C-alpha cells in the first residue's frame, strides 16, 4: 500500500447508507443566522414579507373584521358601542328583509350571468379553437391573432357599444341608434342579463380559444387516430377521447372566467343600473356608497370565497392536467388537419363573423358615436369632430373636446404616472421577490412570499378596493388617511399586479439559473455588484415586459379603482364612467376608445418585445 492513501473509514456502501439518522448534523444556530443574514436574499425576503403583510394581508383582515364589529352609523340599530362584536351584518346580508335585494338577488343574477356566459363562451370558443388549430380553414394565421383582440380591450368597452345601439327611453341622455330609427327596443334586450351574457361571451372567448387551442395543438393526434382505427366514429372519438383529455383545459378556462365574471363591475354597472339589476360587485359598490361598510365587508367576503373556490378547483385540475401531459409523453407526430372542402368558406365566414361582433362592430360603433352630433342620424351634416377637438360644447361642465379637455388630460396624466409608477414598482419588486423565492435557502421564506403574493389574485378587484378603503380611509399609526390621494391608487395598482409580476420574476430567475451569478462571485463580485452587473442586465428584457404588462393591466382596470378614485383624482377609466353617469355619451365613449387603443397598442408591443405571440402557436 505504498502510495495508496486509505480512507479512514473501513468500507463503502454500508457506511454511506447508514449515515446519521433524522435531521443530520447542522451548524450552530447563531452561525447559521449570521451566514443567512450575510446573504442579502434573506434580508430582502424578510422585508418583502413585512411589506406585503401590510399591503395584502392587513387590508383583507381589516375588511373582514368590518363585517363583524359594529360600525359607527349602526350604533343605534344594534344598540351597541362602535367596534363591539356583532352578527348584525350577517343577519342584514343573509336574512333580513333587505337580504333579497342586497345579497340573494345579486347572487342569483351573478350566477345566472356566469352560467349563461360560460356556456356561450365554451360553444363559441371551442368551435373557434378547433377551426383555428385543426382545420385547413382560410385565413387561420390572421384569425388566430384577430380573435384574441377582444381580450385586449376593457370589458365594458363592449357595454358602451351595446348601449350606443340598443339604449331605449328608460334611461336618460342621448337615445340609442335603433330608438332613433324608430325601432322600439324592449328592456330585456337593451339592459340586464341578456346583453351582459353576450358581452362576456365576446370578451372571454379569447381565453377559451387560447387555452383549448393550445391544448389541441399539443394534443397528439395519434390518440385520435388509434381510436378511429379501432372502429370508433368521429363523433364517438370526440366524446370518448378528445373531450376527456381536454377536460383540464376546459375546466381551467371555466374557473378563470367564473372568477373574473364575479369580480366584474363595469359591464354590470353600465347595463344593469337602468333596470335596477344588481350583481354581487355592484351590490358591494352600492353598499359602500350608502356607507354600509359592514354589509359591504360581508359581500366582499362572499366574493372572495367564490373566487377562492373556483381557483382551488382550477389548481386541483391543473394537477390532473400535468398527469395527462406525462401520459402523452413524447408525441412529436404533430397534428393532422381536417381537410374542409365545401365547408371551408363557411368556417372562415363564421370566424370572421365572430371577429366582427367581438371587435370590429363595437370599435366602429364607438368611433362613429364620438363623431356624430345626434346618435343614429347618419346624414352627412350630423358628423363632426367637435367632441374630439371642439370648444364650447353644450355639455355642461365639459365644454372642450376630448383632446383639449383639461379633465381628460388630467385623468390621462394621472393614469400614466400613477399606473406607470405602480407598474415600475411591481416589475422591480416582482423581479426581486422572484429572485428571493428562487434563491432563498429557506423554504418558509419562499413559500410564505409565494402564498402571500397569490392572495390578490383570489380577491376580485372591487373587493380588494373595498379592503383598501377599509384600512386606509383613516389615519393609522404614523400613516395619514390615504383616501382620495394618488398614494392609495399607486399602492393598490402595485399590489394587484404582484401575483403576475412575482410569477414573471420567478420564471425569469428560474430560466437564468444560479451559475452566471456564481461565476461572478468566483470572479470576486459582492452581492450588489453581482445584482447590478449580471442579474439585472440579463433580465432587463423580462423586466421591461413585466412592467409593460402590469401597466396595461392597470391602465384598463376599472373595478379596482372605481370606489377609490374621487373627482379631481380620476384616472381615465373612472372618468369615462363619470362622464357616462352624466349622460355624456360621446365623451365617455371617446375616453373608452382611447383606453382601448392604448391597451391594444401596449399588448401588441409586449408581444413584439417578447417575440412570442400569444396566438402564435394557434394558427397556420
Amino acid at each position, binding site marked *: 500500500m505504498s502510495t495508496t492513501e486509505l480512507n*479512514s473509514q*473501513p468500507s*463503502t456502501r454500508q457506511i454511506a447508507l447508514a*449515515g446519521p439518522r433524522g435531521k443530520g*448534523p*447542522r451548524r*450552530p444556530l447563531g452561525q447559521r443566522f449570521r451566514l443567512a443574514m450575510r446573504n442579502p436574499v434573506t434580508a430582502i425576503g424578510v422585508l418583502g414579507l413585512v411589506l406585503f403583510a401590510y399591503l395584502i394581508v392587513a387590508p383583507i383582515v381589516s375588511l373582514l373584521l368590518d363585517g363583524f364589529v359594529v360600525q359607527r352609523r349602526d350604533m343605534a340599530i344594534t344598540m351597541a358601542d362602535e367596534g363591539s362584536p356583532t352578527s348584525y351584518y350577517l343577519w342584514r346580508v343573509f336574512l333580513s328583509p333587505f337580504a333579497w335585494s342586497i345579497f340573494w338577488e345579486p347572487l342569483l343574477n351573478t350566477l345566472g350571468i356566469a352560467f349563461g356566459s360560460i356556456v356561450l363562451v365554451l360553444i363559441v370558443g371551442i368551435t373557434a379553437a378547433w377551426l383555428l388549430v385543426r382545420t385547413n380553414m382560410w385565413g387561420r394565421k390572421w384569425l388566430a391573432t384577430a380573435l384574441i383582440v377582444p381580450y385586449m380591450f376593457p370589458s365594458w368597452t363592449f357595454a358602451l357599444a351595446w348601449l350606443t345601439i340598443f339604449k331605449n327611453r328608460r334611461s336618460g341622455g342621448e337615445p340609442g341608434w335603433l330608438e332613433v330609427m324608430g325601432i322600439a327596443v324592449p328592456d330585456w334586450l337593451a339592459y340586464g342579463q341578456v346583453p351582459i351574457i353576450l358581452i362576456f361571451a365576446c370578451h372571454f372567448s379569447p381565453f377559451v380559444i387560447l387555452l383549448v387551442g393550445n391544448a389541441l395543438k399539443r394534443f397528439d393526434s395519434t390518440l385520435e387516430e388509434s381510436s378511429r382505427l379501432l372502429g370508433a366514429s368521429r363523433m364517438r372519438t370526440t366524446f370518448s377521447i378528445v373531450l376527456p383529455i381536454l377536460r383540464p383545459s376546459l375546466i381551467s378556462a371555466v374557473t378563470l372566467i367564473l372568477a373574473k365574471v364575479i369580480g366584474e363591475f363595469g359591464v354590470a354597472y353600465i347595463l344593469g343600473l337602468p333596470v335596477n339589476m344588481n350583481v354581487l360587485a355592484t351590490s358591494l359598490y352600492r353598499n359602500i356608497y350608502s356607507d354600509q361598510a359592514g354589509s359591504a365587508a360581508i359581500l366582499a367576503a362572499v366574493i372572495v370565497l367564490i373566487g377562492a373556490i373556483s381557483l382551488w378547483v382550477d389548481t386541483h385540475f391543473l394537477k390532473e392536467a400535468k398527469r395527462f401531459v406525462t401520459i402523452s409523453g413524447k408525441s412529436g407526430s404533430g397534428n393532422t388537419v381536417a381537410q374542409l372542402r365545401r365547408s371551408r368558406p363557411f368556417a372562415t365566414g363564421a370566424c370572421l363573423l365572430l371577429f366582427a361582433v367581438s371587435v370590429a362592430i363595437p370599435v366602429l360603433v364607438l368611433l362613429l358615436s364620438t363623431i356624430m352630433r345626434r346618435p343614429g342620424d347618419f346624414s352627412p351634416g350630423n358628423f363632426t369632430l367637435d367632441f374630439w377637438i371642439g370648444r364650447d360644447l353644450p355639455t355642461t361642465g365639459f365644454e372642450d373636446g376630448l383632446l383639449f379637455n383639461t379633465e381628460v388630460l388630467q385623468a390621462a396624466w394621472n393614469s400614466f404616472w400613477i399606473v406607470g409608477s405602480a407598474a415600475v414598482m411591481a416589475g422591480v419588486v416582482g423581479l426581486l421577490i422572484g429572485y428571493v423565492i428562487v434563491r432563498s435557502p429557506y423554504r418558509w421564506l419562499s413559500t410564505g412570499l409565494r402564498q402571500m403574493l397569490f392572495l390578490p389574485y383570489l380577491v376580485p378587484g372591487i373587493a380588494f378596493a373595498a379592503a383598501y378603503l377599509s384600512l386606509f380611509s383613516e389615519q393609522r399609526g404614523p400613516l395619514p388617511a390615504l383616501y382620495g390621494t394618488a398614494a392609495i391608487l399607486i399602492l393598490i395598482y402595485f399590489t394587484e399586479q404582484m401575483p403576475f409580476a412575482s410569477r414573471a420574476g420567478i420564471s425569469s430567475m428560474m430560466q437564468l439559473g444560479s451559475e452566471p451569478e*456564481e461565476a461572478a462571485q468566483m*470572479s*470576486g463580485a459582492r452581492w450588489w455588484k453581482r445584482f447590478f452587473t449580471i442579474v439585472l442586465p440579463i433580465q432587463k428584457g423580462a423586466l421591461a415586459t413585466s412592467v409593460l404588462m402590469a401597466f396595461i393591466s392597470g391602465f384598463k382596470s376599472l373595478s379596482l379603482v372605481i370606489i377609490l378614485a374621487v373627482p379631481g383624482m380620476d384616472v381615465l377609466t373612472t372618468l369615462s364612467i363619470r362622464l357616462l353617469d352624466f349622460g355624456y355619451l360621446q365623451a365617455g365613449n371617446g375616453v373608452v376608445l382611447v383606453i382601448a387603443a392604448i391597451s391594444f397598442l401596449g399588448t401588441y408591443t409586449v408581444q413584439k418585445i417578447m417575440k412570442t405571440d400569444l396566438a402564435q402557436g394557434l394558427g397556420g
Partner: protein
Amino acid sequence: MPSIRLENIVKNYGTETNAVDRLNLTVEDGDFMCLLGPSGCGKSTTVRMIAGLESITAGSLSIGDQPVDSPERSVFVPPEKRDIGLVFQSYALWPHLSVAQNVDYGLKLRGQSREQRRRRVDEVTEKLGIGRYRDRYPSQLSGGQQQRVALARMLAVDPQLMLLDEPLSNLDSRLRLEMRAELKRIHGENETTVVFVTHDQWEAMTLATRVAVMYEGVLQQVGSPLDIYDRPINRFVAGFLGVPPINFIDLEGDAEHVRAAREFLSGRVEDLDRIGSLAFRPETAVLLPAEEAAGAEGLVLPVRFDAVMPTGGSWTIDVLSGGRHFYLTSLHRPPFTDADDVRVVVPPEKVHVFDIHENRTEVQGA
C-alpha cells in the same frame, strides 16, 4: 501556490444521509487532482464547498494555512474573497457581455488600470486561441469556443487555485481530446493547483497527477491513476475503473468458475470464508488451449468461447464459464472457435481478491 486541506468534512442538506460524509483529503501544492465518481457521489458538492458556494456542515476546510470554512471556529470566508477560479460545467458565460467583457470582468473588480486590463485580456484570449472572437457574444460561439472563454475568464485573474467542474462533458469527443491537452499544458505552465471533477475515468486517468474516487458521499481511494487502476482498494473502485469492466467472481454456489476461483485461493489464504470475491481485468487474462493451460500458475478458468467483437484497434472476447459471461481484451483475433476446449489464465499477481466486506485483501503470491 497553496494546498487544500479537507478535514472530516460533512455536508448535509437536512436529509437522512449526508451528501458528503466525513471527507478527509489533502490536495498538495501543484497537484492536478481529479475527483472521480458516478453522478450523485458528492464530487461536485465537494468542489462547491472548496469554492465557498456551499458552506460545510461540520469539519474544517483550509486553503494554504488559512481556515476558510469551519463551523467549530465560526469561520466562513465567502467565495468572492477566496481567490479561487471555477469553470462550470455549463460554462456560465454572461450572455449580455462580449467575450472580452466576460474575461475583463474579474480584472475590473480588482481595480486594474484600463491599459493593464486590455493587455491581459489580449494575452489570455490569444493564448487560448479565441483572440479573434473578442467582440462576439457567447451565443455566437461554438461549444468549444465557449469553453475556451470560460477558461480564459478564470485564467485572466491568475487565481491561486483552479477548480473545474466537469468542464469537458458538453464537448464532442474530438474537442475533448484537444481541451484535455490544453488543460494539461495550462497546469504545467502555471504550476497551479487544480481540482478537476469528472465522471469520466478516461479523463481522470489521462489528466490527473492524483485521483480521488468518491461513491455515495464517501471518499473511497486516493492515489496516482495507475495505482488506483492496479490496486483498487475495494470492489467499487475496481468495478468503476476500466472498459470493458473488471470481471468479478463471487464465491457463492458451486458453479464451474467458482470452483476454479476456490482452487486458486486454496493454499493462498487460510480462511476461505473470509473471502467474498475475486476479480481480474480483461487485458490481464490470456486465452489458451486446454492442454497449454494445464499446470499454469494463477487463476485458470475453464470457458466456452462465445463471441469476438472488434473494437477497432483491438478485440473484445466474450467467454462463458459456469453460465456467466467474462470479457477479455486482446490485440489479436484469437484463433479459436466455439468447439475448442479453452482456458482463461490470469497470472497470480493480476488477480484481485476482496474480502466479504468488499475490501481488498492481499494473498500470498497474488
